[in-house]
């Protein structure tokens, strides 16, 4: 009898335990209202620049709520949500549906392009060398020229050794990262490590510790260790334009610290928030900045990094198939 009571208590405990302890998905309706609320909540809780950019996200909710109707079309909903995300002014924020990708590109669209592939081809010629994701050659006045198109292209240690060894006879080196929209941050670190002989503090990283707009971890220092392979010991010019974003922004931030490196061109496009992904009840995927990186002085670089020497391509030079920025870089390195 006593054992039956124990068995009964045991089952009751299990039953109550199961009923009361569920860690469940929060109810999210797959309706225009449900998807709007879900997207607003994701940004409210996980986006990392609401305070820094002084965005009143509650006011934006009120303003965009007026455009949500129960029977709106998918295209209509996408347009409203895309417009709401554009308020963040962030190239790392995208909404992906089956038919389109919402994006904010004004951080370079509203500025001079400062890059022309056809004119660049006059400098590269046809016999430039290619190693991993890098095109390189020695220019006519013994200046080395590297063009790295995307940090999504991985570069091997052996590739970089070959490139730097080939260019070692040059008087200086141009690293052109114009129109490089970013990629993998470890590629940025791999390349930058060839240009320092000592361990250097290059910046800080934070992450959100909770859902509040100000819930951040203490800034964690990021150090760049010098590569134990071939390192460049002469002057460098890094060419930048407004399309330099994300991992490229990180690369420019690291390089700007080194004494032999000069950043030349236009302010970079920024993009210092490491993006995460999430999704809405209707299956649309959303990407957003989640983890901010700061420079070595704990300043935000989300809006970009100013060059040491501001140079724009001029139309006069372009008409003569000359790239003003490459020309200025060559002259600088020859001094």
């Amino acid at each position, binding site marked *: 009898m006593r054992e039956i009571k124990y068995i009964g208590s045991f089952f009751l405990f299990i039953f109550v335990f199961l009923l009361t302890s*569920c*860690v469940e998905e929060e109810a999210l309706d797959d309706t225009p209202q449900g998807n709007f609320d879900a997207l607003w909540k994701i940004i409210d809780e996980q986006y990392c620049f609401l305070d820094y950019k002084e965005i009143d996200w509650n006011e934006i909710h009120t303003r965009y709520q007026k455009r949500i109707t129960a029977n709106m079309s998918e295209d209509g909903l996408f347009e409203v949500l895309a417009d709401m995300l554009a308020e963040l002014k962030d190239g790392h924020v995208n909404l992906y549906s089956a038919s389109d990708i919402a994006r904010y590109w004004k951080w370079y669209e509203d500025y001079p392009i400062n890059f022309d592939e056809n004119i660049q081809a006059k400098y590269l010629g046809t016999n430039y060398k290619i190693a991993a994701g890098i095109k390189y050659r020695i220019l006519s006045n013994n200046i080395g020229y590297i063009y790295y198109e995307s940090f999504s292209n991985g570069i091997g240690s052996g590739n970089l050794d070959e490139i730097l060894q080939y260019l070692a006879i040059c008087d200086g080196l141009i690293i052109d990262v114009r129109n490089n929209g970013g990629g993998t941050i470890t590629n940025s670190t791999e390349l930058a490590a060839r240009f320092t002989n000592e361990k250097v503090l290059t910046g800080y990283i934070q992450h959100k*510790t909770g859902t509040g707009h100000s819930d951040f971890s203490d800034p964690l220092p990021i150090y760049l260790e010098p590569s134990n392979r071939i390192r460049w010991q002469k002057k460098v010019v890094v060419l930048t334009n407004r399309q330099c974003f994300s991992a490229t922004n990180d690369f420019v931030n690291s390089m700007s610290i080194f004494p032999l490196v000069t950043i030349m061109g236009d302010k970079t496009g920024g993009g210092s928030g490491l993006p995460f992904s999430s999704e809405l009840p209707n299956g649309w995927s959303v990407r957003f900045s989640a983890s901010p990186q700061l420079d070595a002085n704990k300043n935000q670089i989300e809006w970009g990094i100013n060059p040491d020497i501001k140079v724009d391509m001029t139309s006069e030079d372009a008409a003569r198939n000359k790239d003003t920025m490459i020309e200025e870089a060559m002259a600088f390195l020859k001094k």
Partner: protein
Amino acid sequence: MKKTILILVAAYLLSVPTFAQLQLDSLQANRLVTRTTMYGVGYTNIYDTYLSPVEYTGIEARISRETIRMTKLFDGNVSAQSFFQANLAYTENKSETNNTFSGLVNWNYALHYRFPINDNLKILAGGLGEVNGGFVYNLRNTNNPASAKAYINLGASGMIIYRMKFKNYPVTWRYQANIPFVGLMFSPNYGQSYYEIFSLKNHDNIVQFTSLHNQPSIRQMLSADLPIGSAKLRISYLWDVQQSKVNQLKTHTYSHIVMFGFVKELYKIPNKEREALPANLKAY
């Protein structure tokens, strides 16, 4: 000469215990091992807010291997159970726009005290220790594509074993529930990337203490052992609830799995006694 040989052989045979004598004289409960390997498939529901606010559901395949035997502890009233299981799952979100792969390996070791109620009913209660390792991989995400699972626990375990007969056909039922009470779990911080944890080596707060308030999990099994000829078939239903609320991240895995396997009863013979067995009995 022949007479001498016969006397010597008789003396040898009389001095060495026979296999029949071994069975009767030295049968020990703690050497009888019940081992079952099972294979199953079922339904799973995965939720991990580090990756997505949406549940993913789909199919799971699972294998398990259980060994249970009596020990000499507490006058031979304690059994030891070693349970290993591994699963792989492929799931989809409700809108059918994305998938995840997931998997988990679990090993738990439990000691149960046996309370025999009558000849047919036994209640077992005790504690367990367990180790878990696994992953959830979201096929669409960018810098948060995967969630690593690594956690250990001490917990409570209860079992009810009931033997019955359906018209002279014997069936042994077993219900078991394991609940972790204290443990340690790996978890990234709320918005922390694995890049920060592993490349930048920031390990602050990534190992968290867990208990019922933030890891309300339970593993349940209902099995039936059915003798078929000289074999014994075991059919099990597993209801596995793994949940956590750590570093403001919420996860759950709810699995319902049906498994099949055969139960083997093995008797462990110590080396000394094995050497005494007649050679023609041994294959090796």
